[in-house]
């Protein structure tokens, strides 16, 4: 739409856009670009290198890539994304949407309400709820399973935060797949069922081809969000002994707590690059869909 209905004029329009762009420029674009420069220096929070940082070239990057702690936290991040986003949230979200398709009434409202609630509660609160659930002495889970003294957060920190994030974020996938499944005509499923297709065959042959785009969109978005998620820091703080130290915690502990700002910026830049790959793939997908839509209309 390009009709300037209110007679705003081009210069006033630029004036309208400018304040937002300035704020985005200063607090979003500039920090992202500055990361590149900081990552090439030995800048520190305190001490000599704080007053007079030197450019050290790609040193930070070679140090990071050779650092065992960095490698292990990158690997933990991969586990976290695969386990809690791809398998946990997308799998559970799809399963709930599939089982509830066509269902109305109180059961649906209760299930959706609970799943949504776990998504909208503030991070600090859900973190504490999970600490209470998994507590060693008298946590709800130990009482329920009759396993007094089982220290879930100490013995299985990664598993704990993976299950936690599945609980936390399933709502998005559930809603997205519920919307996607509405595009699958019930008559097609009925025909397949009458022809003797099993549930698995129905999913593979009737449902999957129709919601392929949604699945890809969902995977990209939840992977991106989970990769950047800081919430489980409130539960394990990366411990014990760094066994749940995913990449965001690694940056926080080395850069802001340990004071190695230059080094932390270099790792941040690697995170930015990974985010960029996900985001470009997502935008490309959106554009293709727009094009398909236009071709279908034309």
């Amino acid at each position: 739409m390009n009709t300037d209905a209110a007679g705003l004029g081009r210069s006033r329009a630029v004036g309208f856009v400018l304040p937002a762009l300035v704020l985005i420029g200063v607090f979003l674009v500039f920090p992202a670009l500055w990361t590149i420069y900081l990552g090439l220096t030995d800048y520190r929070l305190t001490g000599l290198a704080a007053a007079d940082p030197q450019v050290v070239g790609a040193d930070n990057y070679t140090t990071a890539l050779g650092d065992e702690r960095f490698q292990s936290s990158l690997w933990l991040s991969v586990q976290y994304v695969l386990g809690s986003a791809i398998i946990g949230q997308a799998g559970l979200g799809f399963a709930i949407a599939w089982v509830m398709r066509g269902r109305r009434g109180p059961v649906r409202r209760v299930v959706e309400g609970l799943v949504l609630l776990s998504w909208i509660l503030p991070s600090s609160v859900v973190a504490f709820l999970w600490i209470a659930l998994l507590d060693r002495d008298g946590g709800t889970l130990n009482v329920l399973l009759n396993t007094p003294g089982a220290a879930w957060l100490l013995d299985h920190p990664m598993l704990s935060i993976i299950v936690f994030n599945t609980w936390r974020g399933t709502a998005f996938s559930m809603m997205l797949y519920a919307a996607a499944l509405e595009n699958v005509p019930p008559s097609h499923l009925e025909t397949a069922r009458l022809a003797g297709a099993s549930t698995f065959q129905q999913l593979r042959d009737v449902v999957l081809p129709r919601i392929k785009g949604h699945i890809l969109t969902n995977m990209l978005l939840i992977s991106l969000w989970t990769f950047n998620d800081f919430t489980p820091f409130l539960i394990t703080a990366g411990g014990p002994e760094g066994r749940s130290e995913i990449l965001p915690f690694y940056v926080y502990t080395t850069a802001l707590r340990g004071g190695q700002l230059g080094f932390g910026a270099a790792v941040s830049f690697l995170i930015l690059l990974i985010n960029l790959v996900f985001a470009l793939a997502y935008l490309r997908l959106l554009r293709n869909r727009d094009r398909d839509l236009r071709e279908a209309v034309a």
Partner: protein
Amino acid sequence: MNTVRHVLGRLASAVFLALVVGFFALPMLWLASAPFDATPSITVSIPEFTLANFRAILDNPYALGSIGNSLIQAGGAALIVVVLAALAAYALSRVRVPGRDALLYVLLLLSSVVTGTAAMVPIFELATRLNLVDTHIGVILVVSGGLLPAAIFILKDFMDATPTSYEESARVFGASPLQILRHIVVPVVRPGLATIAVWAMASVWGGFLMQYILLRDPAKSPSAVILYTLYTEGGQPNLDLISTFSLLYSLPVVLMYLFVSGRYGFRFHGGIKQ
């Protein structure tokens, strides 16, 4: 044969849904019982009912103040995001500003790539140099910068879908552009503005990382940060305080979502939650 399969299928889905309800409800039980329990423990139990824990909150030096801080920061950010995003979205929707499509593409890209996690080091550094550490305005500006791209994008979609005929007829009757904006456009797009306001409020209210990095002074910290310090400082968590405070602090977000979903329906915006 088919009926057996049908019955088994219904049974399986009922069991599955029961498990789902259990999984999602279990962690929340504690939030429903402990705040009203006279001797709260970490175990969920039938509470010996009391409201004394709510009185204890009033005596904590930072608890109530932190709710005020959350309000200032969430409200301030929501105001900035709504006003600036609305102006930008309107201009981008109605006027062919040069480079518009590229700008929108970059905005969408930025909103997902530059996350708090990826930018925490330079943002901390920038805030330190601009003397914004330990100030409300610092938190407000930083989080607004992060929310604006998505807000502009969503509002532009919203304005594109709004017909221009009202604006055109008002212009015919001689209204000035600014009058048209104030008296025609704002009322028409009000639901969109309200959605963005609630979304921004809720994100900042629940947000943790930026507030945690930018604020050192507990007297300026919002509830998200204070709650975390209540159970990390001194080792032994103060359970009466934490549970009660969690409930107080969560209620506004839940009420806001109920309000929005009741009033406008829970509309699905991809990526509306950070």
